[in-house]
């Protein structure tokens, strides 16, 4: 049985429409709508507690909102969750790794969870690790890797099943400056190669002027547009603070 495609499903990247979510009486997200086209790096900027993690949980179907619509690569997450999730790569804020297993074992497990053919898995793992200069680490236990390498491994893993949309929730938390720079640059390159990126962060120095920007505050989208246009003559940090600061 076919259904009429909604406007959100017409977007081959990521589309969110009228998303609301409450924890009991507390509103976490209030009528959130936005689009991210393929080939776009979209930064979702918001202070702690703005609702970023709730939004990420809804986009990954760890939570389901009572109303609103989410479409990933043209697939509605509510009606066709399997197809939508198959097109989604995720790097969570909290590392999701088996510390006692090797990099290759972790990636093999992930490949099976996404239904990759068994015969193709070794090649896919090598290619994914090569992309992030991690191949020589394949046999090491994750416990023995430093924070930067763990994050790179998670990024390599999130790309193994060739997703159309890549979602990263504060992926540089806890990393040193060099590792942060390296991951931020790499993900910008992925956007340039055509991937649709949503990068949730509260760190303004990770956002470039030509990135799309969504400012989330107290569960609502406060501003959207190209970063350079939005910040004008201010630094992004000052502009962001002026948008989100609470009057004394």
């Amino acid at each position, binding site marked *: 049985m076919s259904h009429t495609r909604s406007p959100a499903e017409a977007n081959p990247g990521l589309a969110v429409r009228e998303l609301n979510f409450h924890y009991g009486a507390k509103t976490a997200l209030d009528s959130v709508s936005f689009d991210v086209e393929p080939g776009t790096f979209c930064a979702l900027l918001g202070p702690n507690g703005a609702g970023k993690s709730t939004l990420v949980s809804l986009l990954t179907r760890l939570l*389901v909102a009572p109303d609103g619509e989410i479409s990933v690569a043209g697939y509605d997450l509510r009606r066709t969750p399997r197809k939508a999730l198959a097109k989604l790569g995720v790097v969570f804020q909290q590392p999701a790794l088996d510390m006692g297993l090797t990099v290759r074992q972790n990636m093999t497990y992930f490949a099976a969870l996404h239904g990759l053919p068994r015969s193709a898995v070794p090649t896919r793992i090598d290619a994914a690790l090569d992309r992030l200069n991690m191949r020589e680490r394949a046999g090491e236990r994750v416990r023995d890797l430093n924070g930067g390498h763990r994050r790179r491994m998670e990024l390599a893993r999130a790309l193994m099943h060739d997703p159309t949309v890549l979602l990263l929730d504060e992926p540089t938390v806890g990393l040193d400056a060099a590792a942060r720079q390296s991951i931020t640059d790499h993900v910008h390159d992925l956007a340039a190669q055509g991937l649709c990126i949503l990068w949730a962060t509260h760190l303004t120095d990770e956002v470039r002027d030509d990135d799309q920007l969504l400012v989330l505050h107290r569960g609502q989208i406060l501003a959207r547009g190209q970063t350079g246009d939005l910040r004008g003559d201010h630094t992004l940090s000052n502009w962001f603070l002026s948008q989100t600061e609470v009057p004394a």
Partner: protein
Amino acid sequence: MSGFWGVARAIIGREFLRFVHQRERFLAALVRPMVWLVIFAAGFRAALGLSIIPPYQNYITYETYIVPGLCAMVLLFNGMQSSLSLVYDREMGSMRLLLTSSFPRWWLLFCRLLGSTAISILQVYTFLALAALFGIVLPLPGYVAVLPGLFLGGLMLGALGLVLSSFVKQLENFAGVMNFVIFPMFFLSSALYPLWKMAESSPLLRDICAFNPFTHVVELIRFLLYLQINWGALIWVLGSTVVLCTIAVWGYDPARGLMKRKS
């Protein structure tokens, strides 16, 4: 379809790898029933006279009587251990990886259940081998016949663990919950004493024991070890497994259960 089996293989394989890395867990799983068998049973056998009840056809020693109950105890502890590791996974974040797989959530949970059950069965057979070394040898075909009972009992107790993990919010609270589940379930059952003995002391306690699904896991195992089927126990265990699996799937439903409260 091959993708479904691939997921099952990966999840079960991961459970085994983690189990192999936790030698202490394996050791504890063996020491616990052996302490009961060797020490507790030695002290208790004089106090408890056993009559001949099915499936036994002769007088048996107390050690022989409690072996099925100890097999079920291994399944119970492993079900709880698996549940604990689910709560740990949730706190450590790796649960998210599992739940954002593109496969149906009920299948992912069922595979996880299969993995923990397979490990439970391995532990039970190791325990039975050790018991045989201590002279408690059961009918040889019984070791094979008991396998479906161990599988079903393992699934039921693993499903109970899944249900608990979906309702317990934090790792710190889990020890308390385990005590509230493990000890009443174990002692209010036929694992250590037959129900007719319990009835002599308290008919009410005997009724509670008869209602306890763990009693039926014990009896299912006991009868299968002697190449008999206890149909009543089988139906109880099957029914409890279905009910617990349904509650677990409900508990892990993204629109209702665990993640909503957790987040």
